[in-house]
């Protein structure tokens, strides 16, 4: 059982409470969803539950957090970990070992579990989460979805009574999300308490017993999941939709001919690996938002890197408006936003970050454009803040703004709405649509069905044999 009683917490040097007067109770076999706009205190709630607050993060704490009958202040984090497991939003955050098997074994070894039992638990976890083929892989070689599965498998192999999940669907494809929902349903039925913090709501309909909507560190609403279907209520708190239609298959496929951006004869393989693309051809139209779809590991991000010139093709030609372009030109005419925003921010203010981009492309944009784009992305009030001090959602909007202000012919966004609330997702969706309408070719690699539903006008489906069209079956 997990119980919060009048919990108020303030981080060191912060001038306001991160959470304020929180009381909640989650009993065995109960699933609670905590949602709300970015920065409302959801992550702090998790840190309070798993003991990181106050044992790792200092600060001012009043009230009581009780896990399995014991106050968190009375035992260390690792002891709390015997009863409660936490799956973080960024799975890499919780990896200590560097390959999958070692990661699955790591905590067991520190608990002095006999090696034979560890082996059994690793195999059971691998079977349950479909990790058999990845057991000897380096964690850095895994896709985000695979990392998520490894992290979850690692936690569940320790058999905790309470499971806390921070944005568990953020990096999973819709199929894996459905699998996760089923799996969590099984865990719930077996008596495990679930506390799920997520912006994406649609996949939780059949799982959740109680919904807590947070705002400014407080619990603003206690609802049933069905009450979230109220559009006005969701709009008030900046929440995402509770129902999402998977319309990926209804989107028309791009073809291997007739498009402003044509890629022909593309061949590429990573060193020592089987080719990902062999004599691959596709034509991408301008003015469209194209969803790049395919299973994990099929080469979606590699394709994006190839057509932006980040990776060298073994062979192949890329033409824009009928003219072949060199990799160097591609770098200039395309823009890609990768998943990890921390690596992409260099300057000491948000304004300087955008100005630096415009200075590199002075013929394309100017100072007025910087103001305009900050307004569009709702980051104008942050203009003088250090980019690295922004929240995850704010950083995400800034890196996309940096990509858009270059006015590239090809704009590629890799999971642009991962971990974003409904209001921020709407901002990004509107920009994507506007930018495509201005004549750019926008490619989106995303598992976010809600985003795909809002913005995509066609799809490019990759499979192990190359490009999938309406008539081809893998």
């Amino acid at each position, binding site marked *: 059982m997990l119980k919060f009683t009048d919990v108020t917490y303030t981080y060191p040097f912060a001038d306001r409470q991160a959470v304020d007067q929180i009381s909640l109770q989650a009993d065995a076999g109960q699933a609670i969803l905590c949602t709300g706009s970015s920065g409302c205190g959801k992550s702090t709630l998790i840190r309070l539950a*798993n003991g*990181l607050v106050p*044992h*790792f993060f200092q600060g001012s704490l009043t009230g009581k957090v009780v896990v399995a009958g014991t106050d968190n202040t009375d035992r*260390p*984090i*690792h002891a709390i*970990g015997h009863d409660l497991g*936490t799956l973080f939003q*960024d799975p*890499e*955050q*919780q*990896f*200590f*070992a*560097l*390959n999958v*098997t*070692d990661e699955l*074994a*790591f*905590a*067991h*070894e*520190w*608990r*002095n*579990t*006999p*090696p034979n039992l*560890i*082996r059994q638990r690793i195999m059971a976890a691998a079977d349950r989460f479909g990790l058999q083929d990845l057991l*000897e*892989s*380096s964690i*850095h*070689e895994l896709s985000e979805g695979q990392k998520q599965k490894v992290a979850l498998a690692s936690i569940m192999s320790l058999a905790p009574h309470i499971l806390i999940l921070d944005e568990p669907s953020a990096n999973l494809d819709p199929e894996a999300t459905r699998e996760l929902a089923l799996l969590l349903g099984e865990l719930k039925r077996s008596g495990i308490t679930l506390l799920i913090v997520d912006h994406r709501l649609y996949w939780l309909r059949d799982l959740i017993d109680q919904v807590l909507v947070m705002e400014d560190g407080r619990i603003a609403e206690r609802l049933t999941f069905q009450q979230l279907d109220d559009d006005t209520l969701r709009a008030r708190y900046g929440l995402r939709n509770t129902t999402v239609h998977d319309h990926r298959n209804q989107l028309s496929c791009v073809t291997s001919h007739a498009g402003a951006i044509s890629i022909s004869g593309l061949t590429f393989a990573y060193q020592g690996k089987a080719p990902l693309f062999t004599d691959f051809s596709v034509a991408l139209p301008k003015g469209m938002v194209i969803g790049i779809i395919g299973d994990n590991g099929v080469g979606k991000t590699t394709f994006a890197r190839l057509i*932006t010139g*980040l990776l060298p093709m073994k062979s192949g030609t890329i033409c824009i408006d009928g003219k072949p372009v060199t990799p160097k030109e591609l*770098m*200039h005419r395309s*823009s*890609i936003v*990768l998943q*990890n925003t*921390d*690596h*992409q*921010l*260099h*300057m*000491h203010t948000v304004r300087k970050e955008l100005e*630096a*981009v415009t200075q*590199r*492309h002075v013929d394309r944009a100017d100072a007025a454009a910087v103001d305009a784009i900050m307004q569009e992305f709702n980051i104008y009030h942050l203009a003088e803040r250090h980019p*690295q001090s922004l929240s995850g959602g704010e950083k995400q909007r800034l890196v996309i703004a*940096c990509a858009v202000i*270059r006015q590239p012919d090809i704009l590629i966004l890799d999971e642009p709405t991962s971990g974003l609330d409904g209001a921020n997702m709407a901002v990004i969706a509107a920009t994507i649509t506007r930018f495509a309408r201005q004549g750019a070719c926008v490619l989106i690699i995303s598992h976010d069905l809600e985003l795909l539903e809002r913005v995509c006008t066609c799809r490019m489906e990759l499979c192990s044999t190359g490009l999938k069209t309406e008539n081809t079956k893998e």
Partner: protein
Amino acid sequence: MQVSFTSNGPETALHHLDVRTKMLISAVASIVVILLKSVPALALLSLASCCYLMLTRRWRVMVISWLVILLLWITAVGFMNLMHLIMPKMGATGMANMLIPFLRSLVLVNTLLAMALSTRIQGILTTLRSLHLPYWLYIPAAVMVRFLPSLVEDMRQIAEAVRIKGYPLNPAALLFSPWQTIRLLFVPMLFRALRTSDDLGIAAELKGVGYGSTISRFREQRFSRFDYGILAVSCTFFVLSLVINAYSKVTTFMGM
């Protein structure tokens, strides 16, 4: 799994060596190279250590490491000659003299790299613990070692982000726009390093690192004939190099 590099290399004989063997070789090598002052003796040990590292079959990492050492050596030779030109009283330093620090570094890097490329982090942790080192020493040491792969991965992604933004990333950029290049590389690196150290601390806490009174070893390693063989060969080379050193004309570098 390797300690310090992100991509998986082939499983080699070195992976089956006990981590204690590799630690012992590194420790003894670091002491012996201090004692050696003759070029032939150090050359022999360098050659042996290169062969030892080649057991990892990580050719790319090997070549890059050796090139970095070579670059540092050439830079040192260049500066020493420059100083001689500016201050002739300092006296010229012969190539043989300059070789000594280079060969010493080579031996140390080779033995450490062989360990880093073929050892699990948990192996290092449990070995450090079995040596009865205090908690406050071996946990930070292990976290530091674990930090390296994340740092390498961050550097790769930061370099990629710089290229995406359209900035050149080459020696010319560093020469002609040093502040800009340093900013582009080091600002995200600094913040990522801070975040990674926090993340690793959290991961270690949540997994109970350092709290168990006894630790089980999932991948049990015992001293095998191969360990004894490698130790015997290593001892032979250490002794041989000391003997050569004793009978060689000793070359000193800056009094060392």
